[in-house]
């Protein structure tokens, strides 16, 4: 883990990245990857697309770093870029949705059985998430995957905190129905 991550505030990292410091940019990527991924995942529905969008969004953010008027809130600014790119990506996917999606999994887990189990669970989760509305997906991923509080989720998605709670409640109920109790238990002990 690079020494910059966690020890420097966002504004300082943005200032250093603007000067071309690779370590500062990498620290920003590591710090904001999870919320970016959760947002992209909610909007596209697949991990592969979410990863592509995150990569594009971070590069786009670097190109336009001077446009970030509140460097201390670079996370929120970045998520806006992620959302824009996810919407563009979905439009692009609609055009070429007949093409097969290549499965890419660069990393190999040490335990192949565990990796297979995990992969199967991930697919079930992706499938179940796909049945939710976009807003429900965003709320449940930002809250349960990223660990954001309702206040943060509400601010980010421009909804009320009450609405965030309601969407989360419904999303969790639907996910449980889709996944089934056995999958959730298996998942919990994996």
């Amino acid at each position: 883990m690079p020494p910059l991550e966690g020890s420097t505030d966002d504004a300082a990292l943005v200032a250093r990245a603007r000067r071309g410091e690779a370590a500062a940019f990498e620290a920003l990527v590591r710090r904001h990857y999870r919320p970016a991924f959760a947002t992209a995942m909610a909007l596209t529905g697949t991990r592969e697309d979410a990863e592509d969008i995150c990569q594009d969004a971070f590069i786009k953010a670097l190109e336009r770093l001077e446009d970030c008027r509140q460097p201390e809130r670079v996370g929120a600014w970045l998520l806006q870029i992620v959302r824009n790119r996810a919407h563009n990506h979905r439009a692009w996917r609609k055009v070429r949705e007949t093409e097969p999606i290549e499965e890419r999994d660069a990393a190999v887990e040490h335990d192949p059985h565990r990796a297979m189990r995990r992969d199967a669970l991930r697919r079930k989760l992706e499938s179940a998430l796909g049945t939710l509305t976009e807003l429900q997906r965003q709320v449940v991923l930002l809250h349960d995957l990223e660990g954001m509080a309702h206040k943060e989720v509400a601010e980010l998605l421009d909804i009320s905190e009450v609405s965030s709670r309601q969407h989360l409640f419904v999303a969790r109920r639907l996910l449980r129905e889709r996944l089934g109790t056995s999958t959730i238990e298996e998942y919990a002990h994996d």
Partner: protein
Amino acid sequence: MTDDPIDLTALDPTADGTRFDALVGAITARAEPLLRARHARLNGFGQISAWRRPVLLLAAAIALVAGASLLRPRQVTTRSETTLAEAIGTPSSLATWAGSGSPPSPADLLTTSGEGP
């Protein structure tokens, strides 16, 4: 009905450290030329910035000197009117006589020649 969080760690991109490092590495590799360009651009501006202060100081000093010389009150040189006769070395009394049209008295002649009272 329970409202416990759903365990979504299978979707967590950071859960697998090796995979996450690869993801970050892919982004930073793409970012490298952009970061290099930023660094180079900043260095170019840095050179200019480094010279900016001394150049400004020098310009300010020149402006100060020029301004001071412009604002300094000019020395008024009062020069008396010089007649043509004086300019060519003729005593003014002779020129007066010539201009009056009447001949000088003997006393005037003595005064002009330096032998008078």
